[in-house]
């Protein structure tokens, strides 16, 4: 890269930063009303056709042949985040019937119905991890032993790790429902919140 282009690109970035920082210049939704709702949220569109999603190249020859997510999702149960589809419900209600084995169309998953309770600090509801929903679509080796040690108490999981894409975060947040949906994992409400930080637990030991 030549020094001139470094200088030019520096000024381009600087100009962009100044524009971003000055609300008068950019016509954000909250620009006219300082007390607008969702002041810090960006206008987000979802389930866009590939040619309009900003990642596909609209000039690619066949991009308009690709299916739009909204069309595929029209009969699937809705959810609040991610693809805006409740995939667990979709599988349970047989709205989608994912093939389990490429070589054998009749092969069915053998779900393992085993819940694991992770006790959580403070008054946040405990996590109940259901093996059943996961083994309907995944193999044991997808998670064990590389991501989770298959032993009780051997996995110390934090939300920081999940946000960094480790542990649950390998899938949750990138493909499976993201961490915005707290209560889909943190399901086991504690009965009494104690001042010492650990609450009385409604979960069975």
């Amino acid at each position, binding site marked *: *890269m030549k020094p001139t*282009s470094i200088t030019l*690109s520096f000024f*381009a*970035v600087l*100009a*962009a930063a100044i*524009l*971003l920082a000055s609300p008068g*210049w*950019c*016509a*954000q*939704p909250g620009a006219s009303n300082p007390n607008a709702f969702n002041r810090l949220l*960006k*206008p*987000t*569109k*979802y*389930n*866009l056709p*590939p040619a309009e*999603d*900003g*990642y*596909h*190249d609209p000039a*690619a*020859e*066949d*991009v308009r*042949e*690709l*299916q739009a*997510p909204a069309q*595929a*999702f029209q009969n699937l149960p809705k959810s609040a*985040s*991610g*693809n805006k*589809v409740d*995939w667990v419900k979709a599988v349970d209600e047989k709205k*989608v019937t*994912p*093939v*389990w*084995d*490429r070589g054998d169309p009749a092969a069915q*998953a053998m779900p393992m119905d085993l819940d694991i309770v992770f006790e959580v600090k403070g008054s946040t509801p405990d996590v109940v991890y259901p093996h059943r929903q996961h083994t*309907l*679509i*995944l*193999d044991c*080796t*997808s998670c064990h032993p590389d991501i989770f040690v298959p032993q009780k108490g051997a996995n110390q999981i934090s939300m920081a790790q999940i946000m960094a894409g480790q542990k649950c975060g*390998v*899938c949750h947040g*990138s*493909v499976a429902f*993201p961490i915005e949906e707290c209560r889909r994992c943190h399901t086991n409400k504690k009965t009494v919140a104690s001042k010492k930080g650990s609450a009385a637990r409604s979960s069975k030991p």
Partner: protein
Amino acid sequence: MSQFFGITIPQKFALAGMLFLAMMFGRVEFAAAEFGDIVINNYSDGVGMRPVIFPHWFHRVRFACKVCHTDLGFAMKAGGNQLDMAKILEGQFCGACHDGTTAWATDRCALCHSGQAGMPSQVNKNKDPKLTAAAPAPAKK
């Protein structure tokens, strides 16, 4: 050094220009690729192809995660498979289904290679772009 954060210099000026125009003339519309879409750009940019955009949602309607992530050996990491066309033509990875029978074959280049040039391999998490835009592209191998 013709590459900088994975985009070439003319592309960078074009991006800066588009950003400027967007902010001057309207509310900024951020790219909102579908949640879970994967950009695969191990070698595409280097050979003048558009990067691949893999739609997770389309495939999970049809296949259990296990089919690709266990049986076909896809690592659960964007850009983690070092995919190239030689492997696909031999029937590995995408080539297991994209053979003209289960799914379109490799003659339909642009159906997969349909992404905008210069994007690094990544998974779209549908986050506020301001939080993720500063993340540098992984080093070219």
